[in-house]
């Protein structure tokens, strides 16, 4: 086999497909594959795919390594100590190829059957295909009715509105500032008693830290874990 061998680019489903194609195209005896030649051609194909910037699927590379492995195994002289007949290293691959080919044939058969079946109609199955050009004869009442149906359907949907809480740091800062205008001081526990949400609480803490930093408030605590008193500066 010369190196001018050319493979037509076809969409091969997988490495087995490609291998089968190479074998069948050259009418090679599948039970006696010239593994060196086939490996070369296979690798050429992968190279071609790489040249065309086609991403070579991992499966193809696995097969390449399998081929090279078989090739090297066949080059090695058989161990004279082993008296039994050594199994042909190609055997497993050949079996896989034959199996694959059978199912390709089966798929082809299904394809033919499908083609015939798609040309056959049974009773009752003849729904007219929607023709987009065809206008629907509808009145205003149909439209209103359709709308009503949609509204009704929507009503039945069990839903729950979960309002999104929105509290900004700015709002909280103002809130605390206002509070300190009417009160000389208050305790942090007051916020906890209000049963405000986690988000509120976080923003409150942030606001207090901010106000402390800007020396607008002062925080007092009698001892560790004691309530915090917040007062204006």
């Amino acid at each position, binding site marked *: 086999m010369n190196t001018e061998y050319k493979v037509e680019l076809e969409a091969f489903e997988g490495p087995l497909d490609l291998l089968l194609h190479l074998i069948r195209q050259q009418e090679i005896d599948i039970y006696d594959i010239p593994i060196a030649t086939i490996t070369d051609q296979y690798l050429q194909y992968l190279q071609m795919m790489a040249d065309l910037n086609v991403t070579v699927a991992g499966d193809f590379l696995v097969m390449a390594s399998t081929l090279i492995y078989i090739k090297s195994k066949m080059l090695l002289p058989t161990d004279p100590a082993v008296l039994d007949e050594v199994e042909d290293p190609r055997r497993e691959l050949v079996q896989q190829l034959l199996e694959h080919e059978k199912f390709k044939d*089966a798929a082809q058969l299904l394809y033919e059957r499908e083609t015939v079946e798609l040309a*056959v109609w049974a009773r009752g199955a003849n729904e007219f295909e929607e023709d987009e050009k065809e206008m629907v004869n509808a009145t205003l009442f149909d439209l209103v009715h359709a709308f009503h149906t949609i509204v009704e359907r929507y009503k039945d949907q069990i839903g729950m509105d979960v309002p999104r809480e929105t509290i900004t740091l700015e709002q909280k800062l103002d809130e605390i500032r206002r509070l300190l205008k009417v009160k000389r001081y208050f305790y942090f526990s007051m916020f906890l008693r209000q049963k405000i949400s986690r988000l509120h609480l976080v923003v409150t803490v942030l606001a207090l830290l901010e106000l402390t930093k800007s020396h607008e408030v002062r925080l007092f605590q009698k001892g560790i874990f004691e309530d915090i008193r917040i007062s204006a500066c």
Partner: protein
Amino acid sequence: MLKDAFASELLAILFVAQEPVTLEQFQEIYPDQDATQIEARVRQLSEDFNSVQDAVEIRQVAGGYRMTTRPQYHETVRAYLRTRPSAKLSMAALETLAVIAYKQPVTFPEIMEIRGIKGTSTIRTLLEKKLIQTRGRKKVVGRPMMYGTTREFLVHFGLNDLSELPTLKELEELLGEEPAIKSQPATGETERPTDN
């Protein structure tokens, strides 16, 4: 044939039926008749009808009898129905389907092994088209899902039953072996292939 009242009745049923009519259904209508007798009559009716009629025929599909148009008139029928030829299954889908049809119940890894491809799957498409269905899990490591063909599969390919597919006996010997590592059956549940 038209003078035979019983045959005419059977034909009338086949004419209105939208799904293949099974022998059980015929039996329900004629409880007094012998099942084998009915079968013989339906068979005879099909033969007679098909030999006379050119446009339509009675066929055995998915274990029942149904009346269909003959494929040679598809263009005319299509023109009347204003349909375009339906999308066919891709070759990849057909190959997967072929493996499932012959090997069912079969797992995804087994299918991929035969097809020599890892990764992409057409299983989803086939499930959506109801051509295959799940058949429980295989009692091996990982408990992979098993798949088998459906009644819809038979209808889609105009098969009466799976035995109509040519036997690929050699196939059975090849991948028939169970994986070496088998987990102990944990439950009493059995995965029995239910043939459609």
